[in-house]
C-alpha cells in the first residue's frame, strides 16, 4: 500500500493491513517533525510538505518494488503526509514485512534512504504566514550511495 495523506494516521491500522502468517519480522520506520529543525529563535510549530503527487506515487511504487524484489518481502507499505504537520507529528511511515528480521530491517532502511533523495516531496518550515524552504542534506545523498551495489 502506497498512500499520500493529508492527516495523521494510526500505526495499528496499517500494521493490520500487512498481518500475515508468513511474517516473522516486521520493521516500521516513522519519521517525525523534530524541534531542532527550528533553531533560529523563531516561533515555529509546524512544517509544510509539498508534493508532486502523481510522480511521487510512481517513485514510491518503484522504491517499494525494488525492496520487495531484493529482500523477497511479504509486503511493503509507504505512507507520506503532505500539507501542514505539527511539531512531533508523523511525516512518513514505512512498513516492511518478511519471514526474517535481517530482510525486514535492511529493506526498511533502504526504503527510507531512497525516499529521502528520490521522491517528489519538499519541506518548508512555517512561522506565522511565512515559510522557509528546508534545504536538502548532503548526507542523505551519501547514505543512498551505500545501496548501489546491494540493490541493482
Amino acid at each position, binding site marked *: 500500500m502506497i498512500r499520500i495523506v493529508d492527516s495523521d494516521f494510526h500505526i495499528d491500522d496499517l500494521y493490520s493491513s500487512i498481518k500475515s502468517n508468513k511474517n516473522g519480522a516486521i520493521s516500521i520506520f516513522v519519521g517525525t517533525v523534530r524541534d531542532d529543525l527550528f533553531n533560529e529563535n523563531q516561533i515555529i510549530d509546524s512544517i509544510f510538505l509539498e508534493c508532486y503527487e502523481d*510522480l511521487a506515487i510512481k517513485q514510491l511504487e518503484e522504491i517499494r518494488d525494488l525492496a520487495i524484489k531484493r529482500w523477497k518481502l511479504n509486503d511493503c507499505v509507504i505512507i507520506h503526509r503532505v500539507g501542514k504537520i505539527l511539531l512531533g507529528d508523523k*511525516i512518513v511511515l514505512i512498513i516492511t514485512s518478511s519471514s526474517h528480521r535481517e530482510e525486514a530491517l535492511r529493506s526498511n532502511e533502504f526504503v527510507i534512504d531512497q525516499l529521502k533523495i528520490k*521522491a517528489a*516531496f519538499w*519541506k518548508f518550515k512555517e512561522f506565522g504566514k511565512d515559510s522557509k524552504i528546508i534545504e536538502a542534506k548532503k548526507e542523505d545523498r551519501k547514505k543512498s550511495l551505500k545501496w548501489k551495489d546491494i540493490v541493482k
Partner: protein
Amino acid sequence: MKITVKYFSWIRVKLNKHEDLFEVNDKLNFQDFKSYLIQKDNFYLEVFNDDSIKFFINFKEIENEEIKLHDGDELGILPPVTGG
C-alpha cells in the same frame, strides 16, 4: 500544442504559481522548449543552468534532451527533494 509546466519548492515560491500552460508550435523537442522558455523569461536560464534541478516529462525523468514533446505533455521542474 499545449504543454503544462509544474513548479515546486523554491521555484514555485519565486514564480508564485504552481503551473503554467504554454501554447507552442508542434514538433518541438525538450531542447527547443527550453529555448522557448528562456526567451519568454530569463529566470528559466537560472533554472536550466542549475544542475541540482531535475526535469520530468509525464513523470519520467528526461535522459535525452532531444525527446519530442506532444500535445498535453506535462513538464515537472524539480529542485532537490526533501521528503521523509
